[in-house]
């Protein structure tokens, strides 16, 4: 039976590579990874930007460059004009000898203004990081939070792509009317479903590992990652089957799969932005738990117990969905 399941999977893989849409879906994760590498900020990148007058105080420029992005402009008018633009750039301009004033639009967050104010004061009094008596103790995490968020999201996203390919393959079987021919071979109904499902595991696992490798997450526990990826793909596989059964057109099936993006991005936004008291609103979404589990995997701070806990919750929710959808899937593939 395993041989036949693998045979069905091989066929789907072969045909998927020949189809432009599915080939594109297979390549998308690599594009993601490259884009994440290009756009995600490094660990030492800062979002605080300061504009200074060029040639006015080169020592101050060097000092500020250690802690912020510095832009130099030739005239005071140019600096004023730059500060008026929409972003949160802060101007630091001379106000008589040894005196400086801070120029803002007025709508910048206080912490940015205070940060620049402190920098200006520290520079004035010649205080550097070496003057601090504080000892730094860290957890050794060297991944920028934004990059971790993007990689985490991309990993979950690949599971939806796997479901999408399943939907497209089912639509192909329906269009070619080949399901009846498979049913007249010694492949059981469950064997057929299992064979079709393998693409929904293969695509997320390979894609997610590619993303992890390309984006530099090479020292994490890959077994933890594997467990989270496989459990998160179950829900996408189920939806892939349902969309394949319900649609006779490739574009409709792919389009309807996009509905999964809503709970995916919704729960990530909720987890990142909402207070703890509102988190319960997302407990029903398996992607929410996958996101939390992946976060531990990517920060390399989760124990096996933590990972099994999150994978178990995702599996539990997926089993409930499976019990609801299984009769429809079986009937739809008759």
């Amino acid at each position, binding site marked *: 039976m395993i041989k036949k399941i693998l*045979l069905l999977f091989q066929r789907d893989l072969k045909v998927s590579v020949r189809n432009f849409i599915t080939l594109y879906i297979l390549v998308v994760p690599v594009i993601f990874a490259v884009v994440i590498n290009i756009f995600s900020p490094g660990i030492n990148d800062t979002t605080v930007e300061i504009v200074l007058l060029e040639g006015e105080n080169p020592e101050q420029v060097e000092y500020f460059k250690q802690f912020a992005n510095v832009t130099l402009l030739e005239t005071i008018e140019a600096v004023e004009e730059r500060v008026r633009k929409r972003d949160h750039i802060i101007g630091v301009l001379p106000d008589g000898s040894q005196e400086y004033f801070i120029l803002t639009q007025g709508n910048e967050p206080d912490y940015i203004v205070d940060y620049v104010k402190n920098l200006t004061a520290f520079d004035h009094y010649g205080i550097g990081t070496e003057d601090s008596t504080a000892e730094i103790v860290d957890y050794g995490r060297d991944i920028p939070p934004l990059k971790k968020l993007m990689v985490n999201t991309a990993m979950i996203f690949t599971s939806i792509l796997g479901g999408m390919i399943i939907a497209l393959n089912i639509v*192909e079987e329906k269009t*070619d*009317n*080949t399901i009846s*021919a498979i*049913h*007249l071979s*010694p492949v*059981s109904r469950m064997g057929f479903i299992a064979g079709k499902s393998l693409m929904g595991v293969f695509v997320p696992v390979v894609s997610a590992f590619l993303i992890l490798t390309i984006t530099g997450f090479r020292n994490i526990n890959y077994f933890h990652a594997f467990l989270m990826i496989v459990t998160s793909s179950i829900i996408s596989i189920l939806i892939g089957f349902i969309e394949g059964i319900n649609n006779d057109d490739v574009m409709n099936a792919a389009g309807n799969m996009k509905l999964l993006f809503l709970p995916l991005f919704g729960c990530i936004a909720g987890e990142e932005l909402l207070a703890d008291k509102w988190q319960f609103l997302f407990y029903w979404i398996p992607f929410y738990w996958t996101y939390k589990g992946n976060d531990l995997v990517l920060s390399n701070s989760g124990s096996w117990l933590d990972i099994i806990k999150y994978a178990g919750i995702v599996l539990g929710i997926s089993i409930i969905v499976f019990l609801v959808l299984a009769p429809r899937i079986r009937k739809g593939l008759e």
Partner: protein
Amino acid sequence: MKKMIKVENLYHSYNNDDNYAVNDVSFEIRKGEIFGFLGPSGAGKSTTQNILVGLLQLQRGEVEVAGYDIKHIKNKMFNKIGMSFEQSNVYGKMTGLENLEFYRKLFDVETREPMELIRMVGLDGKENIKAGEYSKGMKHRLTFARSMINNPEIWFLDEPTTGLDPAIAANIKDIIRQENEKGVTVFLTTHNMHIADELCDRVAFIVDGKIRLIDSPKKLKLEYGEKLVDVEYFREGELVKDSFSTVAGGGKDRLVDVIRNHEIQTMHTKEATLEEIFISVTGRGLV
């Protein structure tokens, strides 16, 4: 002789009510027989066939195929049966050869060489073209070839020559005869009485879900055809038409006399066609 298909009191309703698409159907097919299941569209032919191969669930009745009870279908049963569908169903994105190579690996029994089958149905030279680019007839032939890949003991053929040009249809009929000579039992579903007449050992007429008659085409023709010979001949320079009984008194002698003493223009036995017998028995046409 061993029974390959046994059907007793088969009923099927698509809406699970008393409106039966198949209504109390019973028949048996012996090993090595070509059995024709004939009837107009919507008569219940495909429904019966789909129940026999397990594509439709058995609701009521007893069905045994190749020794397997259809109530509890075992996957092994499919090693013994093959089916050529009326609507071709091959993977359009795979070549003809890839379609057969893929399908053969699904079986647990010795299978036939895909290229042998491709040559058999006249698709050699086209085996590496994607099936999606095949014509309707080519797809139909590929579907037909695929149904033989596992050397089936029972071969279900649903309208095997529909849509094929006469030369290819003749080739398909030859293949069916050859396979049957090897001992393959054939269940042929069609509304084409000519192919049934040429191939079948026995036929069943089905209308409105009920079998009206089962017998061999030869017996049916003898029973329902008139035992007359129609002759057109010249008598004293004029063309004359006459009918002579081959059984009633004096008819044979008169026929011999006409043949001896007159120039014959045409002469036909008044043998009934299966189509005429079908209409006579069921009161319905075949369309």
